[in-house]
């Protein structure tokens, strides 16, 4: 893989990537030091907006026509791997999404009456800083450690906002799963570093560029692959490693944790960024198995989702179902597949965040998300209902949402790699997803309001709720009908990977028949 880098001084007047990470950190400091609580919330919104502007500037500076890594920054450090950051189109996409989602979370704080919680707002910005760090770094160890910090911060959010007694069990489950995931990830990271040191005479490195120079011996590739894959698979979450999610989704009191964990698919990002380029032989050896598990996951999760009564648990299974489709796309391994899957993961992420926010708004009014006790909300909350539906439709890949183009790309690539039957099955799994999402939408918004609940007055959406719902509709429909910039952004991100895997793939299924 060629790794040409363009230094930031060539493209920009300031180190954009460092600023992107430092601004949220500065926000943390400001929020913690700010006297009084009156200015807390305005300051937070301002900082989040500033970060979004900065991400927009990154999008402007980034040259999508070049296949080089861009805006690179390097800083040697003592006793620690060098700070090395650079972005390609994929990173830019995730950075933009992080900025948008963080802004929505800050706005959501007001809705949840958390705008005066110094700790909450500071934690949100700290999470933002770690996320941006994860998306710009070119160093595997940095990524792993930042990921540990991020999961810890989210655990703090869950713990701090816990109210009900069951939350404790959810918390425990979360910590167990994530702890194991992190351990696996760390082990894989160290094995890679050790392999590099072994081959280069004691010189340790975790830098992606250097690691790719040193081929990993075949006998340990599979071991490292499974360490990293399972480590990331737990947080993605992949069937059958998803055990923590339904419980956390049901009992985690706020949507915020879910939004950060599920809205930003860092696991998927890490697979493409680090695992795919480093362990090609292991990937090729196991990708059929991964796809088979994913296919089972689509239907397993869809079936369970159809059986849920609780909206939050239903959403949890929806996430598992759609990430399985995502994984089938990823492991189709062609340029089309990677573009489609990454686009899909951002689209799913935004949509999932939307669904979580909207169900949060509903919960605030009804104090329950058990579907037989909901209903008749569309007349009271049309904007929230519409945003819920648009988000649901993006997950199904309905035309007019970003899911459409992305699912299309994924299916196209999957046909080439896994054949028509697998792909048709995956597409039918998507129909199953449509079944439970439409059922959820009808149950919550269109069905008549149950008699027993008629005492609860449904207050109209507040201005801030309208803004959040409106932003989600706008982002989804806007990128859906005008997907070209995002596809162009990913135009050259996977040149290297496509080259690496070119000619090694099955050409099964339809194209073979066509020739």
């Amino acid at each position, binding site marked *: 893989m060629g790794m040409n880098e363009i230094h930031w001084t060539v493209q920009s007047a300031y180190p954009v990537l460092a600023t992107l990470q430092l601004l949220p950190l500065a926000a943390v400091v400001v929020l913690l030091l700010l006297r009084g609580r009156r200015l807390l919330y305005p300051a937070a919104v301002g900082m989040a907006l500033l970060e979004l502007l900065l991400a927009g500037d990154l999008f402007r500076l980034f040259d999508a026509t070049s296949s080089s890594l861009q805006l690179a920054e390097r800083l040697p450090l003592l006793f620690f791997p060098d700070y090395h950051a650079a972005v390609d189109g994929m990173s830019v996409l995730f950075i933009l999404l992080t900025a948008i989602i963080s802004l929505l979370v800050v706005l959501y704080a007001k809705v949840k009456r958390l705008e005066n919680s110094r700790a909450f707002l500071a934690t949100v910005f700290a999470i933002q800083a770690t996320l941006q760090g994860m998306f710009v770094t070119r160093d595997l160890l940095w990524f792993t450690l930042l990921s540990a910090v991020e999961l810890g911060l989210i655990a703090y959010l869950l713990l701090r906002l816990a109210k009900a007694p069951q939350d404790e069990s959810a918390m425990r489950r979360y910590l167990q799963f994530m702890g194991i995931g992190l351990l696996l990830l760390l082990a894989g990271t160290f094995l890679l570093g050790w392999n590099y040191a072994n081959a280069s005479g004691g010189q340790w490195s975790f830098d992606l560029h250097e690691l790719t120079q040193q081929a990993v011996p075949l006998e340990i590739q599979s071991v490292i692959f499974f360490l990293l894959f399972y480590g990331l698979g737990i947080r993605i979450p992949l069937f059958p490693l998803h055990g923590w999610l339904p419980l956390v989704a049901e009992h985690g009191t706020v949507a915020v944790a879910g939004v950060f964990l599920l809205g930003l698919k860092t696991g998927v990002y890490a697979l493409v960024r680090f695992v795919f380029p480093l362990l090609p032989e292991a990937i090729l050896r196991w990708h059929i198995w991964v796809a088979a598990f994913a296919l089972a996951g689509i239907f397993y999760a869809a079936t369970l989702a159809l059986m849920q009564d609780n909206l939050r648990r239903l959403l949890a299974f929806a996430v598992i179902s759609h990430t399985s489709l995502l994984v089938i796309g990823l492991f189709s391994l062609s340029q089309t597949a990677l573009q489609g899957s990454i686009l899909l993961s951002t689209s799913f992420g935004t949509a999932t965040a939307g669904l979580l926010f909207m169900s949060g708004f509903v919960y605030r009014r009804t104090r329950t998300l058990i579907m037989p006790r909901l209903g008749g909300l569309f007349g009271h909350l049309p904007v929230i209902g519409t945003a819920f539906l648009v988000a649901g*439709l993006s997950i199904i890949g309905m035309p007019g949402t970003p899911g459409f183009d992305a699912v299309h790309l994924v299916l196209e690539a999957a046909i*080439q790699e896994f054949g028509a039957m697998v792909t048709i099955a995956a*597409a039918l799994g998507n129909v199953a997803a449509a079944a439970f999402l439409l059922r959820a939408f009808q149950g919550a918004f269109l069905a008549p309001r149950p008699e027993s609940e008629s005492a609860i007055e449904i207050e109209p959406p507040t201005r801030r709720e309208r803004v959040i719902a409106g932003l989600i509709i706008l982002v989804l429909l806007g990128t859906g009908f005008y997907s070209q910039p995002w596809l162009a952004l990913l*135009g050259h991100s996977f040149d290297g990977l496509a080259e690496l895997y070119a000619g090694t793939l099955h050409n099964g299924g339809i194209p073979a028949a*066509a020739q």
Partner: protein
Amino acid sequence: MPEPGYPLLSLVIMTLPLGAGLIWLAPNPARARWIALLTALLDLAFTLLIVVRFDHASGDFQFVEQHAWIPSLNIKYLIGVDGMSVLFLPLTVLLFIGVILASWTSVRSLPRLYFSLLLILESATLGIFCALDTILFFLFWELTLVPTFFLISLWGIGPHRRYAAVKYTLMMLTGGVPLLFGFLLLGFNHAGTSGGAMTDKLVFSYPELLAAPLPAELQTAVFFLLLLGFAVKAPVFPLHTWLPTVAMEGPAAIAAIMTGLKLGAYGLIRFTVPLAPAAAQEFHWLLAGLGVVGILYGALMALSQTNLRRMLAFSSLSHVGLVLLGISAFTLQGIQGALFQLLNFTIVAGGIFLLSGFLHHRVGSTDVVSLGGVAQRMPLLSAGFFLFGLAGMGVPGTSGFPAEFLLILSALDTHTGAGLAALAGIILGAAWFLGMFRRAFLGPMHNTAVIEAVDLRRRELAIMLVLGTLILAGGLFPNGVLEMTRLASESWVENLPPR
């Protein structure tokens, strides 16, 4: 006539969403229906302009517009019309105008949402008739589902309307899967034959796909995938189960759109047969067989129903069967008859469902037992119903006659047994309609709701007069329509390999 310098077809498609947006900007929700009506009338003017400017002497696509949409996959915004599709545009708009007027007073809750969804549905439907890129076609195809889902679940008249909405949407999404795969297969084949990297050479443009030969084994796959995809929508027996449900539970106005616009049959004519011609001819017996089964099953089921709307749904199944039979003949007569019949349905099936909606609005039921003697209180409504019923049977003088005549003629010629069965089906169709008409519209009145009901109002009468005039005009002067579809139909037949 020269083509205009402005994108007329895009204007036809895009005016409607703009109108839908305008509905939300207007301060008064009661204005929604007026905005919807005016937008639809403006659109009607555009479509009529297209028909007037359409060049009869050319069998090619006209008013073609092309823009890049997803360049990396060679997917284009490519639209145009030929003789096969051009007449569907004004009729579709007309049917929607009828639906808007029919919903004028009956839609009380959330009028803004209702009328804007209606306009969006109309826009997507027109897009289906104009799209010449298979993926763009698929986009419009799926885009119709969202408004339909809402329209059925929020304004349906049956108690199980939400179930009906989900059933319809899921069946259509499932049908969309083979459809999309058929199109992808075609794209891949083109990429495979022209060599080079897969994604650079994908082709989804319909004219280009038509020009590319398809290997035999792939034709069979494409044929069955596309047949399956369109059969769900048409609907073809045994994939029709959504139609009676939607007809009973959905709003009558939406049922009029579902049964009036036979998009599935249009898809079969436009895509399935021309893109897999050899396979289609090989499996002509399947098409004819499905057609005959549909005709007889639909007619028999209609005979045994007790509810007017369910009867109409099943008779619509019978009509689709006849169209299928006409397609399976692969002759000029057959295809022209099929197209004529589809155009005819837009008016007849749409109109008769709107009438049954008016009836339901007045009486609160369309069960035959709760009707009886309707003609005494509502002579105009009954006369309209009778006229539309006659057109559905194909009685001479109505637009149904030339269509059914061509269809039966071509069927007798190519599939004699099937043709005879179709004749029997038409007789059964006459039997159920006349029997139902006698029980529901004639005879003594026994329901107080019928006794107190008023006849068609001016607004309702206007719809029926326009549609009725078109039925008579099509029956007495069929040549205009046949001339319009002739060249495109000829090239459709020529595209088939010689048998």
